[in-house]
């Protein structure tokens, strides 16, 4: 059975399975590598950022390509997985990198703006992830839900700024992602409906 004849619901399941497997592979790869902490932190941070950015690309690209429009429903899954990767990223930082040493964490945040940006991004993503379902839409009502989910733009901008500023020397990747994000934000600003 080829992908093209699968119903959308099955494609959603496939996507979920694929992204779950990817995360598990990332954890395995980090465990096998020389430094579990930095490898896992990098993996979840990088691919979490990619997933979140991809979820934003759906709307502008759906105007261009019909197959994107048909898969619009996958946007939510990708966004939520981006949040899941981000959560693992945060857990790794708190539990593995800093081993729950809160004072050390506070000191580190104080000395590094990029960590504060990461925290801002995560805090904004929390209610977005929590309401990315039918229950959320029903509870909030369409208008409020739309308002709340407009926070996505700030959250993902904070993610990209965090990614960029966290680099020691390799800024090309976050810079490119940032450019894509700027393009999306400008497009959305123009076409806000």
């Amino acid at each position: 059975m080829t992908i093209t004849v699968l119903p959308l619901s099955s494609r959603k399941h496939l996507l979920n399975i694929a992204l779950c497997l990817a995360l598990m592979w990332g954890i395995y790869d980090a465990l096998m590598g020389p430094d579990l902490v930095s490898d896992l932190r990098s993996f979840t941070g990088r691919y979490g950022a990619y997933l979140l950015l991809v979820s934003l690309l759906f709307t502008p690209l759906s105007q261009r390509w019909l197959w994107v429009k048909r898969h619009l429903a996958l946007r939510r899954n990708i966004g939520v997985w981006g949040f899941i990767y981000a959560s693992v990223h945060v857990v790794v930082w708190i539990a593995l990198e800093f081993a729950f040493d809160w004072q050390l964490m506070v000191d580190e945040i104080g000395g590094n703006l990029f960590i504060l940006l990461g925290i801002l991004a995560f805090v904004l993503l929390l209610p977005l992830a929590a309401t990315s379902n039918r229950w959320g839409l029903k509870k909030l009502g369409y208008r409020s839900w739309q308002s709340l989910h407009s926070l996505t733009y700030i959250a993902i901008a904070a993610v990209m700024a965090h990614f960029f500023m966290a680099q020691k020397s390799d800024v090309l990747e976050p810079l490119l992602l940032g450019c894509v994000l700027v393009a999306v934000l400008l497009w959305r600003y123009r076409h806000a409906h």
Partner: protein
Amino acid sequence: MLIKSSEITSEMVFNKRRRLIAAGLAVLALPAVDKGYALLLQKQEQAKQPFPPLASMPELIPEVLEPTPLNIITNYNNYYEFGYGKDDPSKAIKSLITSPWTVDIGGVGADKPGLYDIAEIKGEYAIENHVYRFRCVEAWSMVIPWNGIKLADIIRAAQPNSKAKFVRFTTLNDAQQMPNAGWSGGAYVEGLTIAEAMNPLTLMATGIYDKTLEQQNGAPIRLVVPWKYGFKSIKSIVKIELVEHMPQNTWWKQNDREYGFYANVNPRFDHPRWTQATERVIGQLGRKPTLLFNGYGDQVAHLYPDPDNRLYFY
């Protein structure tokens, strides 16, 4: 296509959405604002802080150093000539020809210059074992059991004269043997003051864990200066010169705002973009506080009479 009136986004949400998009764009500008502010701060002097007496920190200096496992030491490396990633140097083809290898020892400050084969160097001097902390400027660290020769022995053999104020080291730079040889626009260069070079801690390492150095660790011979940030411990050395003037080391040349000549480890002086107060021990969980002079203050603090001067610590 008819749109139901309920589907039309209310004006309030429309405006709010636009405002949030604008806010998003503003957040993206934050790194630029931060950099601008940092440049402004660079004009101001670092706040003077009292020099902490080394005796107050004995509990932070462990008596027994636990060496990092070899597979970690050989798989987590910064050696940009073989790629920018931490795993690039170990994954790269072993294209570096480490035998034969000669080290050219000379310069105006050397009365007895010479071209030494690596085998000669290893044969001439006693190989010692030293377990040192290694602290990268990126705020990660390892503990490495080096095998090597005191740099002081090698310099003495070159008969330094009064012109020998500094020592300048050069790495091999060969595009045939190194896939990313041109990353810094020339050969990697490092330097020490003659006093730092003659310090008993300073090592010319030829092995780790009694095994010959691997390509990714700077084979066949590299410098180890444990009280300084790791980029000072230059790899794959082909030339050592005793010179009169302070050499401009590569990272200082690359980015003089963030990397200087002395680069002594000091948790009080942050890198412009990150703190140096703590470090990640590679292969372990958690972070630990960074030690002044990486814990080697007893042997080297006397070399730096002005402990409040950022010049020595970046």
